[in-house]
């Protein structure tokens, strides 16, 4: 068997070159990992949005119901009926009072 003769490399360079490349790959992996994590989080927030929209719909529904109650309670015809039931009546006689106008004398 033939063996190739290898020259021994300079000790100084053997430790620097692998270090830089490792840093580069580490940063790249971290960056990609962060991107993936952030994307997953954003995608998962769709569920939260759906929940918030559901709550919004419920609040809007409650608002509509309150509004409808307010509209119905402002009914004058209903108030008039209730007034009749409570015994309120219109006046039989209206008396008009005449008054003389008194004006202060100018100085």
């Amino acid at each position, binding site marked *: 068997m033939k063996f190739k003769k290898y020259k021994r490399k300079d000790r100084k360079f053997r430790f620097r070159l692998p270090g830089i490349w490792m840093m580069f790959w580490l940063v790249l992996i971290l960056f990609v990992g962060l991107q993936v994590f952030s994307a997953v989080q954003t995608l998962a927030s769709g569920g939260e*949005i759906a929940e918030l929209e559901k709550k919004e719909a419920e609040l809007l529904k409650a608002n509509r119901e309150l509004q409808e109650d307010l509209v119905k309670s402002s009914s*004058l015809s209903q108030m008039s009926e209730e007034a009749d039931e409570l015994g309120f009546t219109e006046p039989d006689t209206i008396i008009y009072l005449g008054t003389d106008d008194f004006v202060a004398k100018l100085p």
Partner: protein
Amino acid sequence: MLLRLKIFTVLFLASFALLIARLFYWQIYKGDDLSVQARQQYTKGQSIDAKRGDILSSDGTWLAASGEGWLIFAEPKRITGDPEEIANELAPLFVEDPDDRKSLLVEVDRLKDLMTRDAFWVPLKQRVDGEIKKNVEVLGIEGIGFEFAETRVYPESSSAAQLLGFVGKDDQGNNKGYSGLEGYYDLTLSGKPGFLSRESDAFGNPIMLGSSKEVLPIGGVDLLTHIDKTIQLTIEEKLSDAIENYGAKSGIVVVMNPKNGAITGMASYPSYDPKNYFDYSDELFNNPVVSSTYEPGSVFKIIVMASALDAEVVEPDTRCDICSGPLKVDKYYIRTWNDEYHPDSTMTDVVVHSDNVGMTFVGNKLGPDKLHDYLKSFGIGQPTGVDLQGEVSPKIRDKNEWSVVDLATASFGQGVAVTPIQMVRAAAAIANDGIMTTPQVVDKVVTDQGNQDIKPQEEGRVISKKAANQITAMMVEAAKNGEAKWTHRSGFGVAGKTGTAQIPIEGHYDEEKTIASFIGFAPYDDPKFIMLTTLREPQSSPWASETAAPLWYSIAEEFFPYFGIHPEK
């Protein structure tokens, strides 16, 4: 060994090539189609309804408002239970009176028929309120669903129905206002729907990194009207009583502020419930105040007399020299309503006695050309421009088409057709010192950015202030001493005129049927309101002095303290 290695290498390469080919097929060749299919699955677009604007009375409370309504639907292919049983459970919730067996059975049949159809989706009941929806939900029936549908709420029930109009559907199934204010201001009240399109996952949750498009809806604006609820409810109640007491077929009451044309009340009978408009005949949807025409009769005399006074062809004390008996015009005789004649009547007497012969005298003095011009100035034959859908305007004869008979009959309000709103507007010009205004229901448009005033529109001077004062004085005398004097409320400065008009039927006038009217304003020197009451075919008496006039005064009695009108000293 080497051979096996080579075979495996070839097989591996072949599989790899097949995979690449397959990927090419699905990603490149079929890529566009699959992309479209995927987008259809996860992209949803839906229209967002805009809230319809409310209609408010003058004090800001509601006449018509948006409310919560539901459409209950069935998906027949998803119904697992027995349709008849389901129909039996739902029918009592849908009918008005669950004790009415007949309507209950009809409803059961209807629902059963719908649920057994060969369809994916059928509507069972529209415009259902929240309570009924809850009761149906509690039953937990598979295949029954609910869809929100905005509905209209009318806190005063069917009050002012024809003035308000109603909200129905158009051809596309969208909400649309018909008749009255809902029809006239439909675009303003409707607003503009929005749209939302976005990508969703299999659960329906939005995909935040996906594409989305949103257009926010623009809600309809609210309308603040001049309608005074107290006035409106008062005239509705009194009109309803009068219809019953006098046996009239129909009637109207209109109340207006003559100084600015503000319509503060408008009632008509018969009417309908706008919430359940579909249960009523189409004819009831028209507002007779703006859509029906009639020959006004003697109330029209104030217009003709005012014109003659303004043209100075007569004075209040001008004597009628043809008033001693019936007057022959062409081949006809003009008679008074009671066949009583007053020789040498003054013009004031002519109005007080509602003398047809006297009015023919006035008409002849004016002449057809001048009368035609004055009628046009008073707005007769033209739409008033009131902001209500469905206004009509009967034409008046052209100048050169007036015969002597036409001149005579028009002088006392027959042979000429008007709508009630035209009559009110014309008389309001008298009350407003000779200046005519456009009738107006809506006062302001209420938006989020603020209120937009709809200013009153003055149409100009029709007659001089002097002529207006003269005719007003005649109307005061007519109210005090005319045929309706028995119902006059003494002490209150009312200017008014009765009118009993015959109804034309197939080329002649009916002998018995009449339209009884009273038009008046008070106080005459500073009018707070002008009001027209009209009763069609009253059975108790054909005369306005015994029907429309008492109705007018019964309403005015309520109005005097309300408007702060006190008796004259």
